[in-house]
C-alpha cells in the first residue's frame, strides 16, 4: 500500500487514506490476486485529522 501511495498518491489527498484507504487496498489485492490482509496498510502520519495553520482562539 505504501508503494501504491508513492506511485499513485492514493492516500495523499484530504482524507489521507482514512476514507479511500480500504477501497484502495481492496482494489490492490484484487489486482494482485492476493488476500487483502497481505497488501499492507498506509503508515500513519500526523496530524490524525486536518488542523488549521493558525490555532483557533
Amino acid at each position, binding site marked *: 500500500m505504501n508503494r501504491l501511495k508513492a506511485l499513485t498518491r492514493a492516500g*495523499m489527498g484530504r482524507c489521507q487514506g482514512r476514507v479511500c484507504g480500504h477501497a484502495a487496498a481492496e482494489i490492490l489485492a484484487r489486482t494482485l490476486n492476493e488476500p487483502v490482509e497481505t497488501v499492507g496498510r498506509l503508515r500513519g502520519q*500526523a496530524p490524525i485529522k486536518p488542523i488549521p495553520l493558525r490555532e483557533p482562539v
Partner: protein
Amino acid sequence: MERLTVDVAIIGGGIAACSAAVALREAGLTVALLEKRLCGGGASGVNFGGVRQQGRDFSELPLSRRARILWDGLGAKLAEDVGFEATGHIKLARSESDMAVLEAYARDAAEYGLDLQLLGANALRAEMPWLGPAVIGASLSPTDGQANPRVVGPAFARLARRLGAEVREHAPVRHAAHDGAGFTVEAEGVSVRSRSLVNAAGAYGGAVAGWFGEAAPVAPLSPNMVVTEPLPHLVTRSIGVVGGDVYVRQTRRGNVVLGGGRGTADSVDGLARPVSATSLGAMDKTLTLIPDLAHAQVIRSWSGLDGEMPDHIPVIGPPATTPGLVHAFGFSGHGFQLGPVVGEILAELVTQGRSPLLSIRSGSSVSPRGVGRTGRRGDRALMTEESLRGITTMRRFLFAAATLALLGPAPALAQAPAGKTLTIGMAAADISQLDPFRATSTQDKPVVSWIFNGLVRFKPGSTSLETLEPDLAESWTRSDDGRTWTFALRKGVKFHGGYGELTADDVVYSLKRAADPKTSSFATDYAAFDAVEAVDPYTVKITLKHPVPSLLGLVANYHGGNVLSRKAVEAWATIFA
C-alpha cells in the same frame, strides 16, 4: 542468489545513483544498481522539492548552475512529467541585517553568473501583496523553481531500466570489498562483480566509505515537512528566508508545502519522524510570512533520512584509497537540485577519471570537488591554492579521525593548551555572523560550534538526544510533573577574552535571548518556557508551561542552547545585535 557481472556497481537508489546509472548506460557501460528499499524513496523523495541555486555555498554553485540547465530538459529526457516549474525562488529578509546578507550574497553570486534581483519593501509588496509585514525585502532568483520529489527518483530509475541497467530494489548491501582485480558487492539476494563502484548511499555513504578504509562522519539529517490541503493559487514563488528556518512553496495542484527545523532520525533502522512541536513552529513561521494561510488545513507531516557532512558540503569524487571507487554522498539536505548533474559527474569520473566540473587534483583525499576554483576579483579574498589545501586538509583530518570531536565545543573554555595552530579552510569568503541564535548558514554553524558551549552537549560524533552529556551543567534534576528543571553549573568555567567566570546569570540571559523572536531565529523552540531564573550563581531553574520531554535538546550546544557571556554581548552590543 542472483549473480551479476557488470562494469559498474552502484550502491544506493536515490536521484544521484539513478542518474549515474542512466549516464553510465548512455556511455555504453553495463550497470547494476542496488537499492535497500525503493528507488527515490529516501532523501530524494521526501525533501521540499526546491530547485534552487540561490543561497548555495559558492563551492556548490558551479555544479548547481550546470544542474539547473539539465532541469530544463529533464521532463523530456525522462519522458515523464516531474512537475518542474521555474517559479523563481525568493529569499525573504525579516530585518535590515538579513537584507545585508542578501545584498552581499547577490554581489558574490554574480561572479558565478547567477543573477539575483534585490527587492525593497515596495517592489516586493507590488509583486507579492500577500506577504506579511514581517518581511522587509527579498532577493529573487527568477530562474530557480520547484519540482515534485516524489516522482523524480522513480522516473530516473525507470529510465535506467529502459536503458538496460540492472536495477534491484529491496536489496540492501551487506558489504563491498576490492580484491585487487575488482569489486564484489554482496546484497540481499544478489551478488555483483564489477570493475568500478559508485557509492551513492546517502546517509549510509560514510559507512560504505569505511569499508574501504576511509569512514566519513556522515550524521543523519531529517527534514521536518508539512503539507496543506489544495488551496487556490496564492504563493507564486518558492520561498525561503535568511537563516533558513522556514521554507514554503505551493504545488501545481495547490497544496502548500512548508518545512523548517528537523525531525528525528535513527540511522540504524532508517526511520525518521517529524516532530510535532517543530511542525507547529514551522506553521507559525509560515504565517508570519503569509498571514492569509491562517485557515489552510494541514493534512500531513513527514520526514526522511539524508546524510549531513560536518561542513554541509557533499563528498563527490574518488578517494585515494581504492582505484575504481567513486563517492557521491552527504548532500546535507540540499542534494535534490544537484541530483541530475551528479549522475553526469559520476559517469565522467568512472569513464574518464575526471570531471571538468570538479577539477579533481590527483592524489587528493576524498575530493572537495572544484570548490572555489572560480577566482574572486576586487577587494575580496582570492580563493587560492592555499585555501583549497585548507579544505582538503579538513577533509583528510575528518576522514582520518572519523569523528566529530573537533567540531564539538572546545574541551575547556579557558585552558586550551597554548601552542600549535590548526588551520582549517572553509569554502566561503567570510563568515556572515557568529551570533549562535542567528547563525544558520553552512559556513557559520561550524564556527559557532567551535566557540560556544551549552548546559549539555551532544556526545562527540553523535547527534542523538539520547546520549547528551553534561557540559556547562554538571548535573540536573527534573520535578515529578516535568515542569521544573534545575541545573547545577560547573564552577570555574571562564569565558574567552577576559569576560570572567560563567554564572547562572549568563545562562538565564542566554536562554531568554534564545526565546525572544527579536533576538533569535529559534524562539519558537522555546515557546514552552515560562520562566528562567538564577537561583544562585551556580544554579539555574527553568519552569515550563507544560512538560517538554526533549528539554535537554533545547539547552544543548546547538542553535538556541548555546550560552553567551552577558558581559561580552553588552560590551559589543552595537555589532553583536
